[in-house]
């Protein structure tokens, strides 16, 4: 899984803004979403991303797993992440 070609991203504080060039649409990710994106963009698979987030945030495994899967699903649906 990786960012789609034509999607660029920039940090604003600890958050992230994504630009989908082809469709000319901007998306925003909060701090946790930004960290997830950063890890995926660096080539980490989702299970490893979840482990990293668990180590960095004080939340349950179930919560991190659900949130990460939901966000990844949404990003894939919007064409921002591809295989």
């Amino acid at each position, binding site marked *: 899984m990786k960012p789609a070609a034509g999607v*660029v991203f920039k*940090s*604003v*504080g600890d*958050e992230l*803004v994504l*630009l989908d060039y082809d469709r*000319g649409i901007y*998306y*925003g990710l909060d701090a946790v979403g930004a960290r997830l994106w950063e890890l995926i963009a660096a080539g980490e698979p989702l299970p490893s991303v979840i482990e990293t987030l668990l180590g960095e945030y004080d939340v349950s495994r179930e919560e991190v797993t659900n949130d990460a899967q939901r966000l990844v699903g949404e990003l894939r649906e919007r064409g921002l992440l591809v295989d």
Partner: protein
Amino acid sequence: MALHYRVYGLTLEANEPIDGLIPLSGTPASPDLRIHYRVAPLRPDDLAVVHEGELDPESQTANVIIRRSASTRVCTIDYRDGTSFVIAPGGSEVWCDWPSTSTPEDTATYLLGPVLAYVLRLRGTLALHASGIAIADRALLLAGAPRAGKSTTAAAFAKRGAEVITDDVSPLILEDPVRVLPGYPRLRLWSDSAEALVGELPRLTPNWEKRYLSVDVTDTPREIGAVAVLAGRAAATSIRQLYGHAAAITLLRYASMTHALDESMRAREFAQVTKLANRIPVFEVVAADALDRVDALCDALSALSSPA
């Protein structure tokens, strides 16, 4: 004889007077931009539409069409009233012509607004669709959609003695500190706002209801304290600070001529705006929907651009 002007950080050389600008007394060594009034150069054959403005319900024609040539990178901006502009690659020259039903004053309203805003973008300068005023040596930029109240609020500040920096086009120097370049010595106001705030004012052009208020503009970039986005009207004024992606995406919405950028300009804009959002506080302002409460709005906005 050529005339020279300064506006938005650019030195202009023009073959005819530009309404609203004050000519420079000397002759600058080399202008940044040459303006040719009443000259219509040949247009490239491969002009393609990059933006169409709002459609007139009756004629079903767009109020403005922007085109670009892929081979020459020449751009054109054509208005429904027949006024047309041709812009050289990189924004180094502008040629303009207009029909007998229009006037040089009409042409200047386009030139000093969207046309020069687009020239700035072609030259790589980020500009916001915002008016700017100075409060205690720092600029407060008032961004927003057309009719959001940018110029009216700036005029209310001017009435209180604040210095006006620019109207409607705020070109930025993205260094540390971030600064705004000054515009020209006028604020453009709708007649109802003008009447309520300052009384009767001269018409901007014989063909348009807008009026202008003359102001003093100094040719010095000003450090920006904050951007206030005028986001709507309600019964009472409310202000909230935007952070992170919300601030950046809001600023992207109010970048000048953002609808007419090509891919490389869009990439540059994205980098510039995120940089801006990282450095300057951004506030969303819902203003009280009454001109007699504009003083209270100015009071509330005055605090935003002060150093933390």
